[in-house]
């Protein structure tokens, strides 16, 4: 068993997973990941795009170190301050929005805190409890919590899934704003090619189970200047590379 371990070069994520399997109910082993390799350079936003159920969440959990039992190595940023935005917001329902952020990020200074709540439009919800928030707002709190820790590596697991398109688009814009403010090395996992084309510096296209990287697609054009046409072009490129397998699942 190999555990994720920090290495010399800060901000660089290197993943080499030979095999990760789960025991099924029948006692057989089902491979979830096989020969999954990629390197994410410092300060970039990497996006893993793959069909639903291909093992993306499993891979994030391996990187986060909350699950072991795989063959291979994962090299994480040196200082290794990790932040994660899960598929569900995973807030503490018995603490207010502000407490949720400050408990996880006790070192956050007031300026950063105010800026985050400003960008994410949470200022009026500081004293609310998570049970009083809509899903979109709860997702924003989860984003604020992750950024407040000032992470060396940010992991995002389909953070905008099951929001309506307009809202998802707004949250994506807010995410871009925050990521570019301090070039956080970010790994985003999604089944949504449109989202990947908008957010990523580098796309890793995954096969269905057992997942491996079928193509790596660096996007040189800065996120801010991508027009609708550029994004359509990127999406077409993705679709071509993996044969309409993933492209058909775009929103």
């Amino acid at each position, binding site marked *: 068993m190999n555990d994720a371990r920090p290495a010399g070069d800060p901000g660089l994520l290197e993943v080499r997973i030979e095999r990760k399997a789960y025991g099924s109910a029948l006692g057989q082993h089902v491979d979830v990941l096989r020969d999954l390799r990629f390197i994410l350079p410092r300060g970039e936003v990497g996006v893993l795009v793959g069909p639903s159920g291909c093992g993306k969440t499993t891979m994030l*959990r391996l990187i*986060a*170190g*909350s699950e072991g039992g795989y063959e291979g190595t994962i090299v994480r940023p040196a200082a290794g*301050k*990790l*932040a*994660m935005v*899960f598929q*569900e917001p*995973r807030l*503490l*329902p*018995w*603490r207010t929005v502000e407490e949720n952020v400050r*408990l*996880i990020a006790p070192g956050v200074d007031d300026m950063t805190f105010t800026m985050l709540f400003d960008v994410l439009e949470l200022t009026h919800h500081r004293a609310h*409890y998570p*049970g*009083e928030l809509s899903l979109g707002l709860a997702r924003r709190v989860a984003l604020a*919590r992750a950024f407040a*820790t000032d992470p060396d590596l940010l992991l995002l697991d389909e953070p905008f899934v099951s929001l309506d398109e307009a809202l998802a688009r707004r949250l994506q814009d807010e995410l871009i704003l925050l990521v570019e403010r301090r070039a956080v090395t970010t790994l985003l996992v999604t089944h949504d090619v449109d989202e990947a084309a908008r957010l990523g510096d580098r796309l890793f296209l995954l096969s269905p189970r057992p997942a491996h990287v079928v193509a790596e697609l660096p996007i040189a054009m800065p996120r801010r200047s991508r027009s609708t046409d550029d994004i359509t072009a990127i999406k077409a490129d993705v679709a071509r590379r993996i044969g309409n397998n993933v492209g058909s699942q775009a929103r």
Partner: protein
Amino acid sequence: MLRLASLALFFIAWFAGSLVAGEQMLPGPDTVLATILTEARSGDLFLHLGATLARVLVAFTLAMTLGAAIGLAMGRSPVIDRLGDPWLIVLLNLPALVIIVLAYIWGGLTETAAVLAVAINKLPTAVVTVREGARALDPALDEMARVFAMPRWKALRHVVLPQLAPYLAAAARSGLSLVWKIVLIVELLGRPNGVGFEIGVAFQLFDVTRILAYALAFVAVIMAIEMALVQPIERRASRWRPRTA
């Protein structure tokens, strides 16, 4: 309002019962109240209530702290659960009387033996309740705390304990009443003061009035604790829950 009406009904039934059974077997509420007042004026009532209350509080605190810690450990770790389970079943099924008698034989007729005997009686039920709670802990929040490298104590306080709160409250509720009943037996068997001792004396004299006076006085004390302490704490712990309109 409904509660008051129900309580009034209780006193009416009691009064009627005493008329039928006679003052000797079941003295009426007025007689019992008069005895409570006499005992209070002489100071005896407060001496015995105080002694019993002190034992209840020490035994209760001991059993709850230990029980919560063991229950949490057993709920979270299957190995500890398997190791501890047989002990738990033995303790659960050991009669209170046996534990008390053995504690007095091994520890002498001392305060420590008395309080420990009570705490050991309460311990297994507290463990069982908290263990249920620990099994129901949300693994998603656990993972969140781990990924963000939340310090252990902080995670315990802000992630784990709020989830256990309903179970702790249930254990505390049933615990308080169980503990004070057992304290009475302990006092009856081997203490020179306390409500249990007084009831023992009254039993030898067949003084039903006195028995009821002491029992009801202490019930009132426990009710006061419940209303002044347990309920406000519960309300505070659940203030985050969306109120139903």
